[in-house]
């Protein structure tokens, strides 16, 4: 299962807890990454009206909170929250693996000089467990998708 963009209704319900798992303060450190999120979540139109939602390969859902900062183009930053059962511990291994797949999805979507293969190679260099798992999975020909149902 690949990373897919979801509608809010498909991933949230009343008894859910949001767990902060990753924050980026400089989404435009390389501007093409900011542009990717603007494109994927129609942020030029929707701006701060609604978070974005993703479903990871584990089946977990993630909420993307886009951050604004005076003097910088929106969004300047991004927080990712795992949406988990309200009273249950988070499966950290599954979330970490999903985050890696979200990074791969992002690289595939940004494109150009940013390649998923280079990201995987970087992950392996630094012995990131999820990157090593991907390496094993590649033998089964899984590739990230840049598309999905948009809300």
């Amino acid at each position, binding site marked *: 299962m690949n990373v897919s963009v979801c509608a809010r209704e498909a991933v949230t319900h009343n008894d859910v807890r949001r767990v902060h798992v*990753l*924050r*980026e*303060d*400089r*989404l*435009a*450190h*390389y501007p093409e*990454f*900011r542009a990717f999120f603007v494109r994927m979540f129609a942020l030029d139109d929707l701006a701060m009206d609604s978070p974005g939602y993703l479903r990871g390969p584990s089946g977990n859902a993630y909420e993307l909170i886009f951050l604004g900062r005076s003097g910088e183009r929106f969004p300047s930053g*991004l927080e*990712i929250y795992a949406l988990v059962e309200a009273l249950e511990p988070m499966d950290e291994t599954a979330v*970490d693996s999903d*985050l*890696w797949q*979200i*990074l791969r999805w*992002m*690289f595939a979507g940004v494109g150009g*000089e*940013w*390649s998923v293969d*280079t*990201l995987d*190679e*970087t*992950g392996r*260099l*630094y*012995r*990131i467990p999820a990157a090593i798992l991907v390496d094993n999975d590649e033998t089964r020909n899984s590739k990230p998708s840049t598309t999905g149902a948009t809300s």
Partner: protein
Amino acid sequence: MPAPSSSAEGIELPDWLRAQWPYRPRYARVNGYRMHYIDEGQGDPVVLLHGNPTWGYLYREFVAPLTAAGYRVIVPDMIGFGLSEKPSIEQAHTLDGHIANLTALLRSLDLKRITLVCHDWGGPTGLGFALSNLGRMHSLVLMSTWAWPMPSSEFHTRMFPWRTMHAPLVGPYLLGRHAALVKRGLYLSVVDRERFRREAQAAYEFVLPDPADRLLTWAWPRWIPIDNAARALHRFSWLEEQLKSCTLPTLLIWGREDDTFNPEIFPQRFKALLPHAEGPCFVTGRHFLQEDSGPEIAARIAEFVNGHHLRAVT
């Protein structure tokens, strides 16, 4: 490895680390932050500056020989690293801010006749202080660093691994969540990796135990200019211009195996800016050359400073 415990003044070191770093912790307020440093020995000051992702511990093999040689040794931990305060927001870190933090410490100690030993980000930071406080300076030692706006080698422009690991979200994931620079990055950047793993690795990991503590490990590399949009371009240009007229005695020391700041390129660029500089003296070492050649480098620094003190007297 047990998690560090905190006191009102900072992290308390466990016995195994205290045995390697036995120095009395001291703290100063700099620009609103708590900065840790050590201050050992008597004599003219030698200030040892670390970079990313290290702390004063990098110089553990320097303190005893330099104090024995008759110098006062001061080793600060940059704000965001080591036993100093670690601000929780990325915007807390700027090159000018780090220069001003160092300036606040060294002025509060009223140091004069300073020999400044600069490594990695300790270069732009230390030189920022030195070149705006020339009246307090005696000499410079530069190791595996740079001080100009555009890259001198391809390392920092490569997609693999440099630009990829510092891409949005990737930096906080790799270097924050997974401590990539503190663990694997340091390990890959020494020559004797097994000795490093056995004797030193845990000390670097100990002071940056959680993702939030490691913010500067991914935030700081993004300040390295690789194009004209870089944030600190004007400061690096200023550093380069000021170095051209700098006459401070200078010693260049580089690791022969340095694959971050190429030993065939970077020392020569410093020599072009500072034609009077001594060296480069090449030692066994990659980027973290202190880990492979600490006692040899400490001896060279003592010899260099002694020599210039004698020349000043005679």
